[in-house]
């Protein structure tokens, strides 16, 4: 077990390193005209060179990277080009928003997806199974922004204009901490109230994939020899399904969840954009429009590290679920 954790940890660190190289190269090696954008149209070549020098963009690439990674290791991801805010502080401000969206949605989709997948698999070809399958397929085929637009249109716009303002429009309300001066609301209920639509949007789209996935996994496990043994022992069908089948069926689902974390991180971008929430996605989109490289690279790096760390945790859960993997 220790060996297993150790090996995973080393691999994880290696991946983080490679990701940092990849993201850094992607942006700093590619031709860019940040200086020109910043200097404005009438800038002279000298001004541009000066700006490039000030941003360190005239140094050799490896030097830039070394500098970047050294500071990153000390918890400093640099400053944005325009307002000289530290990237770390931007991320600190934005991360709670994205995490709120991501965690809530993930919990919701796991419950919906795994639950409906089990219902489907236990009674295959029943009406319930078919209905869930059709629903899952429709949501699975639905891009996040289409579903989000529809929810906004019907549940917010139509309802509100009909006099039922059940759902708030847009914007994020913090659960803890100082209330934003421009937005005095905060606390658990307002937080949740504002997040319901984003959660539902993101969760439905992803849950559909999990319904299909869990169903397939359950069906496969239910045909295993040890399920036959369990039935031959005379234990209740409920116990066969929940104790024997689910335990094994969840292992591939957990693995898939690990893979989907990266997609989840991307999924919040669209959701943030739709529901006007200023999380990591929104910030990086703004940075992208402005070619604000330190912010883009910083956010990408932090999100990737989050994915790698979460994947490590997923691996540990996996090892708990299946004692055989502890051998490695």
């Amino acid at each position: 077990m220790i060996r297993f954790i150790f090996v995973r940890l080393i691999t994880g660190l290696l991946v983080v390193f490679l990701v940092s190289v990849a993201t850094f190269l992607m942006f700093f090696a590619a031709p860019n005209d940040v200086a020109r954008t910043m200097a404005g149209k009438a800038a002279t070549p000298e001004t541009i060179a000066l700006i490039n020098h000030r941003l360190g963009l005239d140094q050799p690439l490896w030097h830039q990277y070394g500098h970047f990674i050294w500071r990153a290791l000390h918890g400093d991801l640099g400053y944005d080009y325009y307002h000289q805010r530290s990237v770390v502080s931007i991320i600190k401000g934005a991360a709670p928003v994205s995490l709120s969206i991501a965690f809530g949605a993930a919990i919701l989709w796991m419950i919906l997806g795994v639950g409906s997948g089990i219902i489907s698999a236990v009674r295959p070809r029943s009406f319930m199974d078919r209905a869930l399958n059709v629903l899952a397929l429709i949501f699975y085929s639905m891009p996040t922004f289409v579903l989000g637009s529809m929810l906004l249109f019907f549940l917010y716009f139509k309802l509100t204009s009909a006099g039922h303002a059940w759902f708030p429009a847009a914007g994020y309300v913090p659960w803890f901490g100082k209330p934003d001066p421009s937005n005095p609301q905060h606390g658990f209920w307002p937080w949740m109230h504002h997040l319901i639509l984003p959660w539902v949007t993101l969760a439905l789209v992803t849950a559909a994939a999990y319904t299909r996935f869990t169903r397939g996994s359950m069906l496969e496990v239910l045909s295993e020899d040890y399920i036959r043994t369990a039935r031959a022992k005379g234990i209740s069908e409920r116990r066969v399904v929940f104790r024997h089948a689910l335990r094994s069926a969840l292992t591939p689902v957990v693995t898939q969840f690990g893979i989907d974390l990266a997609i989840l991180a991307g999924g919040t971008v669209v959701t943030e954009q739709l529901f006007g929430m200023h999380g990591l996605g929104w910030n990086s989109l703004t940075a992208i429009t402005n070619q604000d490289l330190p912010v883009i690279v910083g956010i990408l790096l932090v999100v990737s590290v989050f994915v790698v760390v979460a994947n490590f945790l997923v691996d540990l859960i996996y090892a708990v679920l299946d004692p055989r993997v502890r051998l490695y």
Partner: protein
Amino acid sequence: MSATPATAPPTAPKTTIVARGPWALAWRRFRKDKVALIAAAVMAVIILVAIFAPLINSALGQDPNYQDQVNGLDVNGLPLGPSGAHWLGTDALGRDVFARLVYGARISIGIGILSTGIAVAVGVVLGLLAGYFRGIVDVIIARLLDVVLALPVVLAAVALVAVFGQSPLVTVLVLAFFSWATMARIVRGQVISLREREFIEAARSLGASSTRIMFVELLPNLVMPIIIYFSLLVPVNIVTNAVLAFLGLGIPVPTADWGGMISDAEAGGLYQQAWWLVFFPGGVLVLTTLAFNLLGDGIRDALDPRIERLLRK
């Protein structure tokens, strides 16, 4: 006897099926799958529309990029709803929504298929190499995979498009970059289990070379997972492309693109006045991905009837 038919009979009864190759069998199963056949028909229509977009629009006398400020907008300068002149209404610039949808099919489907094709080709080659040679080749490719899979897809894709500039080619390459990894993973896994099979050893004992084993023995066994993954990946890439467009980093204007059309409509909440601007492109997008997914499911069930075998209806 049992109220809940669930699993296969413990010993699959032996049946002798005479003279039918794997493809013939798959086709036979596919032909019975009505849903998949309908999906295939819908797909065919959409693809035909994409191919013959110019013909269709000239026959209807519509230009997707013509901004009819006079007749295409109402007195307040707002877009027109669906009518006889404009079947699906007009957009904020007075352009015909139907004509743009027809052209958008070209972009959406073209990019979806092309990017998937590149991703699958790269994934198959790398997966094959990693799985067959193992060792250092495998380690390098595996770490490469980890890196790609650790990047947040949409975020990184958007950033890449921003860096390299908006163009159809960049979009295709970016989409391919983020989707080869899963294919490589699947192929690698398949190859690792296949190479333990005795027929590979048989080939080796006949003196077959590595190239021959990879392409003559292994590749034919990978065709089914490749087709299955291809059919499931195309809709994913169509959607991701639409997402890029929605985030303002799709194909440059004024080219029609389904995601871009929705994005335009979202801007300033325009769609709250003109529902058709979101409803039709969104609907077509959902219909296309749905058809692709249904078709993909059908192909998967026909080629790899494992789940169906488990059920044994």
